[in-house]
């Protein structure tokens, strides 16, 4: 059990087709969920540590704008938006995946971002400017790997053909745009209402 905890996610990212199949049909959902949240947590931790401890040659970060709490939103918000957008689309497009499945497959796909970028936080402190090429290479490699895993995961979860997967992924991105817009609209309206009520309250209290 304990060994499985570490071994299974690694198996998934190394053998995505078999791994995602097992993930969807054979594994314990609860365990997977715990693992998913664990990966998200690790990704957040990696990003926070990276902005603080990455080498000076690859990381110029204005301490004035450094905010570890924001790093959490930079991970959670895109993941949740992605899952919601993908789920809303695929339910209309005969996808077999449930929301949980999508969330789990997405989280597992983010694992390369942790296991490659985390050691590089420390390695980037002992490299020179010429060697930063390796840093950027590995960063891009991790990102591409994650993207590939996301593609395979999506395909397996929904039982889509590759081309249909690509189309739904593109459409999900557009849907994310719509959702972001609606959120902004919603927040700004709420804000207006709150201001209106506050002003009204002030007006009334000052009348006496």
């Amino acid at each position: 059990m304990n060994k499985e905890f570490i071994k299974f996610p690694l198996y998934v990212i190394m053998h995505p087709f078999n791994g995602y199949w097992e993930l969807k049909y054979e594994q314990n959902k609860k365990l997977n969920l715990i693992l998913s949240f664990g990966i998200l947590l690790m990704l957040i931790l990696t990003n926070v540590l990276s902005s603080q401890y990455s080498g000076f040659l690859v990381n110029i970060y204005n301490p004035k704008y450094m905010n570890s709490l924001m790093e959490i939103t930079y991970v959670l918000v895109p993941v949740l938006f992605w899952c919601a957008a993908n789920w809303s689309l695929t339910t209309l497009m005969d996808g077999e995946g449930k929301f949980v499945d999508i969330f789990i497959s997405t989280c597992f796909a983010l694992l390369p971002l942790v296991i490659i970028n985390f050691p590089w936080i420390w390695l980037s402190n002992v490299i020179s400017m010429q060697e930063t090429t390796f840093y950027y290479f590995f960063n891009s490699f991790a990102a591409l790997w994650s993207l590939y895993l996301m593609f395979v995961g999506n395909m397996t979860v929904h039982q889509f053909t590759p081309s249909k997967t690509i189309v739904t992924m593109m459409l999900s991105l557009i849907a994310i745009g719509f959702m972001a817009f609606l959120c902004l609209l919603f927040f700004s309206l709420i804000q207006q209402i709150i201001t209106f009520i506050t002003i009204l309250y002030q007006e009334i209290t000052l009348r006496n």
Partner: protein
Amino acid sequence: MLKRKTKLRAYLLAAICCVFGISAGGSLAYAADGDSYNYSVWGDTVVSPSAYEATTLMTGTSLGIGAFKDPSDLHVTADNEIYILDSGNNRIVVLDINYRQKAMINSFNNDGVADTFLNPQGIFITEQKHVLIADTGNKRVVHLDEKGQLVQIVEKPESDLLPGNFDFQPVRVVMDKAQRIYVMAVGVFDGLMEFSAEGAFTSYIGANRVWVDPVELFWKRLSTKAQRSQMVMFTPTEFTNMDINDEGFIYATSGDSGDTIRKLNAQGNDILRRTGLYDPQGDINFTRDLGPSRLIDVDITDSEIYSVLDSKRGRIFTYNGDGQFMYVFGGMGNRIGEFNTPVAIERVGDDFLVLDKAFGEMTLFQTTEYGRTLNEAVRSYYRGEEDKALQLYKQTINRNTNLDFAYSGIGKAILRQGDYKDAMRYFKQSLDQPNYSKAFLLYRKEVLRANFSTIMTVVIGIAAVTLIIRTYRKKQARKRGVSFE
């Protein structure tokens, strides 16, 4: 990639800020009254002590030569003689180092006839004290020798490169050591006009690139031919001014977007070093309604230090040869040290003269202690006197901890002295990655060399232990008769 990531985050943050109604724009470009400012490595406007202070205001009357009328250009020779081009009065006033009138050029002898100027706009004095005047109203460039005798007159050139109806209105002129004349003329978009020593037009050099606004281009694509002919044409921006340094490189400023300061070599290529954190361009933080700086004059001194004049805000920005922003002074207003229509700047030694066209005044700025130290620090570094530069840079940061490029200067000096770790610290402070990397490589080598035996012992030790464990396990496995994975 990293930068893009940060940028993306910045956008996201900005979007979130907008939602919560916090305005993120409109950085303040103005410093506290009387104080100067500088830009931090993060692009923020930070306070800085003044490097220059206005000390004297000179008018034509106070100099005893009658009021100036729309003076438009200044030139100071190497031995600090000041030539003022008093355009409205069509004369050139020459002052000596103590600001007393030395000579006045009203006219010159042109083939036995006394000839005068008409609204001249530009003046240049060569090392031999020959005077070149861009005689704009008469559409010619007049070249006089040191005694005021006519050498030659350059008039509208005949060339296939020029259109037939070309109107030659020179406004600025410089001459290099090979006696070639470079002329900036009104309505010429192809660059500076280069004339040979004999006054024959040879070519254009250093044309500005056309800058196209994508939005405008889009509308132009959509519009009809008739509409398009009504629109503004995309033309390269005109130069606004130029100056030449001792090495024969022309520094030219241009009005609008893009690289507004350029250093042209003989081929007309831009070779200005822009290794500072921000490209030399005047203000980098500005309000949207006033827009970026409009640079209209440039002055070069020794050690590749150059200054530019912003006509919008009346500020004079000074940069060193690496493009690092040293200091700024001036402003618009009615008090001393402020201008109405500044048109020209020149250095007299380390002092500055700023000419105001509408007021017909000349303001003299002199260095403060801080300005002197900083000037001298940059000069010593340029000459390669690292120890002296180190001392002076340390003094400047004692006066102004916000002067971020000084830390890089200190870092370079102590890197040369062999203190790599400390140098790294200083480079980090001024976000100087290339130099940090240099210091780091040396430091890494030093550490690895010092600890070579320890490191090798550990590595060999680990290798040996793993080997022993492996063989031991294999042996155990063979004993039990189970194959190990």
